[in-house]
């Protein structure tokens, strides 16, 4: 009896039935054939005739496999794109496609893992950055109709202040004369020493117009907002406190409203507690008191220190408001030429003000992560293409069985989207982890930074991105499958089919674009890193090492006159300097890189007063004698202040080198005289006794502006608020001792903002560090993905060319030749990619020039270095497959296939 089982098994092999079911069918069918065989024998056929006839019966029908495939679906869930005659059921098909896709992914865990990781990195980076953008840029401000809120500034462009803080008199004229605003409010920073139960504390707050809260449309959670009569001098000893302060300092006392608290030694009645989410203008602000201009303030037009916020009437557009304010400002210019000559008015959306200068950085980062995702897409598309080539047989079979091309494309796209969805899921997890890390680097002064989180919008964004991603990277393989030439594939058993060469071309293009895109990213990151290095190498003009700083603000109520304050400062410095480990100590109005402001206009002896808008403006710092020494600011000429510079001794000033050069170019500034205010003002002439090096007072990126120093014994119009201590210990280790020393002199005197000078410097570049770090990470990610992409394509290409390489080697090609051939192929792609990337980068990096410092957007060094890095990585990525190519055994390669 011949055995038919093997013949049947062969026919069923492609069906991949479960083994049990397969055996059952084989048993049944072979029985049938055996019965047939026996019958033929009994009727007189020879054994061979009987065998051939039975076999013919088996092979006669080519319906066996397709029919079984369809019927046995319950046993083996292989859905088939059969069915020209089958009605298309969208949902049913989708379900089928999904299950099939999932099975395909599970069947190739390696492929799936690589693709999902690449996508997860891309999508995760996008979700994380989008959460930041969403919270910081997109989320509406938490006020009523926030789109109608604007800031109004004085435009003093002529003196370099296009958005200057308005003066009180100007603010009041603006408020009373306009027809475009529902209401307008002014505010100005104020700090209070909060005393009473617990340690004395320095609390930042704002003096605000009584109308501010109704203007913002936010009600206190407890109590009430200010009343109009409280916005008058004498009626203003009321305070509204933040939710945080209420919780922390007053134990969430529900009866706090109506109770008095002690601010700067005076009693204020708490009238309200704001809701937890309220912050205005920043998170630092913990309390608000009525601004209540006194008569002197109300008349001030030349002192510019307010911030003005306004709510536009419904239907009024920004341009209308701007036009109206310009009209009013022009009128005021004519009315008050001595103060307002060059002062216009600018209206800007509140949102723009709140978002501030982080916007360009965030947009660049958003672009960067989009690029990373594109590269990930290219990688996955490459993987899919390679796999599609392997799946040619499957595609051919399906087409032969009558699957429509549309149906095939749908199947392929479903698989891609499924892959993208998996990537999106993992990416979301990465985003959650990443955000927690990211939050540490977000500059603290960014509005809403604390509120950054993954919310519904981010989820929707992630889902959409995943979907689109899946469609993008699925498109190439899907169309390739659709254009698939059935006949060629059926005729050629091999892999070197016609579709292969087109696939290679697509793969090449993908690598080129990957390289181009990562080149742009790397250039961006390179420029930022370069900027940051420049920034850290900027000489700030002082030495930040081993200096401890803190804020000590004497309340005017307790230290009413100059003498009292002078005694406190001198005593403080004396005591601190006796502490072990302290080299020197000093006080100053403002430390570099902490606060802006405190600028005055000066006149120079022997020169006529210039026009009001030409008056030299000088940053002024009022200091104690050993300040330069303590801060490490080099004295270039003359002397620093000394104990001898007493209130009644001749008035002295120390200038920065820029000031000296600007005022007396080519001359010695020592012994010359300047005066605060115009020449005819009653102020004393100040004698220049020293010149010190320029200090970057505001920001490291800002070129030093003219500055001068006055001794605190002689000048009192700005109050020293900062103590700085030079030590030979770790600065912060001294903090507690120094604070104790302060309390020994005055137990109610708060100490705040304790920081080392190095921290201050580092904080001041937090924004730049944030952009640099993130872009650096993303560019690194892009580089790795691109390298993986190149490696993948080269490996595939080598595998495809095994035979060709074998022949070459059989014909005498050397190892080096093969290496050259393979690496050359990779290099060609990379160099093309770099060329495209170069062209694009020249255009794109210009968009980020506002983030750069000390390097041009087309810095040749960066471009050359990055090109070199990218090409090296690419060579490395193609070297490994190339090496594999040289190990091809010619005989094996020739026999192969």
């Amino acid at each position, binding site marked *: 009896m011949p055995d038919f089982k093997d013949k049947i098994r062969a026919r069923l092999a492609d069906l991949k039935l479960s083994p049990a079911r397969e055996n059952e*069918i084989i048993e*049944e*069918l072979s*029985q*049938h*054939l055996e*019965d*047939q065989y026996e019958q033929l024998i009994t009727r007189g056929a020879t054994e061979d005739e009987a065998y051939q006839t039975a076999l013919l*019966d*088996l*092979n*006669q*029908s*080519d*319906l*066996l496999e397709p*029919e*079984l495939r369809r*019927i*046995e679906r*319950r046993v083996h869930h292989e859905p088939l794109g059969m069915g020209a005659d089958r009605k298309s059921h969208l949902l049913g098909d989708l379900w089928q496609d999904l299950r099939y896709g999932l099975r395909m992914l599970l069947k190739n865990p390696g492929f799936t893992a690589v693709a999902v990781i690449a996508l997860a990195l891309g999508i995760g980076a996008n979700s994380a950055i989008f959460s930041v953008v969403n919270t910081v840029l997109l989320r509406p401000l938490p006020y009523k109709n926030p789109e109608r809120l604007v800031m109004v500034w004085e435009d003093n462009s002529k003196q370099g202040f296009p958005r200057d803080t308005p003066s009180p008199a100007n603010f009041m004229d603006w408020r009373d004369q306009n027809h475009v605003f529902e209401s307008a409010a002014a505010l100005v920073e104020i700090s209070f020493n909060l005393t009473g139960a617990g340690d004395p504390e320095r609390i930042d707050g704002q003096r605000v117009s009584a109308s501010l809260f109704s203007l913002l449309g936010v009600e206190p959670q407890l109590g009430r907002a200010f009343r109009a009569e409280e916005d008058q001098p004498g009626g203003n000893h009321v305070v509204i406190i933040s939710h945080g302060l209420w919780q922390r300092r007053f134990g969430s006392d529900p009866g706090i409203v109506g109770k008095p608290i002690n601010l700067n030694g005076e009693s204020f009645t708490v009238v309200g507690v704001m809701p937890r989410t309220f912050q205005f203008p920043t998170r630092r602000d913990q309390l608000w008191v009525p601004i209540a201009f006194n008569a002197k303030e109300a008349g001030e037009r030349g002192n510019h220190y307010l911030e003005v916020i306004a709510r536009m009437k419904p239907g009024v557009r920004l341009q209308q408001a701007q036009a109206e304010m310009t009209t009013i400002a022009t009128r005021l210019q004519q009315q008050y030429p001595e103060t307002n000559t060059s002062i216009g008015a600018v209206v800007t959306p509140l949102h723009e003000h709140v978002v501030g200068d982080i916007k360009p950085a965030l947009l660049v980062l958003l672009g960067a992560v989009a690029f990373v995702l594109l590269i990930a897409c290219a990688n996955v598309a490459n993987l899919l293409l390679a796999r599609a080539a392997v799946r040619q047989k499957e595609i051919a079979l399906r087409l032969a069985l009558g699957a429509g091309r549309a149906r095939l494309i749908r199947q392929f796209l479903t698989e891609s989207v499924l892959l993208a969805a998996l990537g999106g899921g993992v990416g979301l997890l990465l985003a959650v982890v990443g955000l927690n890390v990211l939050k540490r680097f977000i500059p603290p002064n960014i509005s809403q930074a604390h509120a950054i989180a993954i919310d519904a919008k981010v989820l929707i964004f992630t889902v959409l991105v995943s979907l689109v991603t899946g469609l993008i990277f699925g498109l190439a393989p899907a169309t390739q499958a659709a254009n698939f030439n059935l006949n060629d594939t059926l005729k050629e058993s091999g892999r070197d089919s016609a579709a292969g060469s087109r696939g290679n071309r697509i793969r090449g293009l993908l690598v080129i674009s990957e390289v181009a895109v990562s080149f742009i990213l790397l250039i961006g990151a390179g420029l930022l890193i370069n900027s940051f290095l420049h920034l850290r190498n900027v000489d700030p003009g002082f030495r930040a090492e081993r200096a401890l700083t803190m804020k000590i603000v004497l309340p005017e109520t307790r230290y009413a006159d100059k003498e009292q304050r002078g005694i406190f400062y001198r005593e403080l410095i004396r005591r601190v300097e006796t502490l072990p480990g302290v080299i020197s100590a000093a006080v100053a109005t403002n430390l570099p890189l902490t606060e802006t402001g405190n600028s005055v206009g000066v006149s120079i002896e022997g020169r006529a007063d210039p026009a009001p808008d030409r008056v030299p403006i000088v940053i002024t710092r009022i200091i104690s004698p050993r300040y330069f020494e303590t801060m490490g600011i080099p004295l270039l000429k003359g002397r620093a202040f000394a104990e001898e510079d007493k209130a009644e001794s001749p008035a002295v000033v120390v200038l920065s080198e820029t000031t000296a050069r600007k005022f007396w170019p080519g001359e010695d500034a020592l012994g010359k005289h300047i005066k605060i205010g115009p020449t005819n003002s009653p102020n004393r002439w100040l004698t220049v006794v020293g010149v010190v090096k320029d200090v970057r007072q505001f920001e490291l990126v800002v070129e030093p502006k003219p500055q001068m120093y006055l001794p605190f014994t002689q000048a009192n119009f700005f109050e020293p608020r900062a103590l700085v201590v030079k030590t030979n210990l770790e600065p912060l280790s001294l903090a507690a001792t120094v604070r104790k020393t302060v309390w020994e002199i005055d137990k109610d005197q708060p100490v705040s903002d304790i920081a080392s000078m190095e921290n201050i410097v580092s904080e001041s570049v937090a924004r730049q560090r944030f952009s640099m770090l993130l872009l650096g990470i993303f560019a690194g990610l892009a580089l790795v993905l691109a390298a993986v992409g190149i490696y993948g394509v080269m490996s595939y290409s080598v595998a495809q060319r095994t035979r060709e390489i074998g022949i070459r080697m059989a014909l005498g090609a050397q190892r080096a030749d093969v290496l050259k051939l393979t690496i050359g192929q990779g290099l060609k792609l990379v160099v093309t990619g770099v060329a495209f990337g170069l062209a694009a980068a020249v255009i794109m990096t210009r968009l980020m020039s506002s983030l750069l410092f000390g390097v041009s957007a087309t810095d040749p060094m960066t471009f050359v270095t990055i090109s070199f890095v990218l090409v090296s990585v690419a060579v490395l990525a193609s070297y490994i497959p190339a090496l594999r190519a040289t190990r091809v055994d010619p005989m094996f390669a020739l026999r192969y296939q």
Partner: protein
Amino acid sequence: MSYIGSHILDRELKKGSAELLILSLVEDRPRHGYEIGQLIELRSRGVLHFNVGSLYPLLYRLENRGWIRGRWVEKPGQRRRRYYRLTAAGEKVLAAQRNNWRDFVQAITRVTGVAHA
């Protein structure tokens, strides 16, 4: 010659008339596949022939639909064989298909004027 029938039958497969044949043959008692094939050939006097590749997918399909039920049966001295019997659902289908078929044949007859011998 006999294979002409199989080509016709392949086409008929899709139309479902082959189902009627099989359902009829297992109506009175359970039969195994080879027996069914033999009976079809025998009773059609050789006009209709099922080859292996057509017959079994058809049986599995009917079984999948719940119209027939196959069971392995071991009889003394023989190999085990798979016997198919008509289910209750199959009976209903058979009745309906018989009616349809009768109507169809009568219609054809009326149109073509081919009379019964």
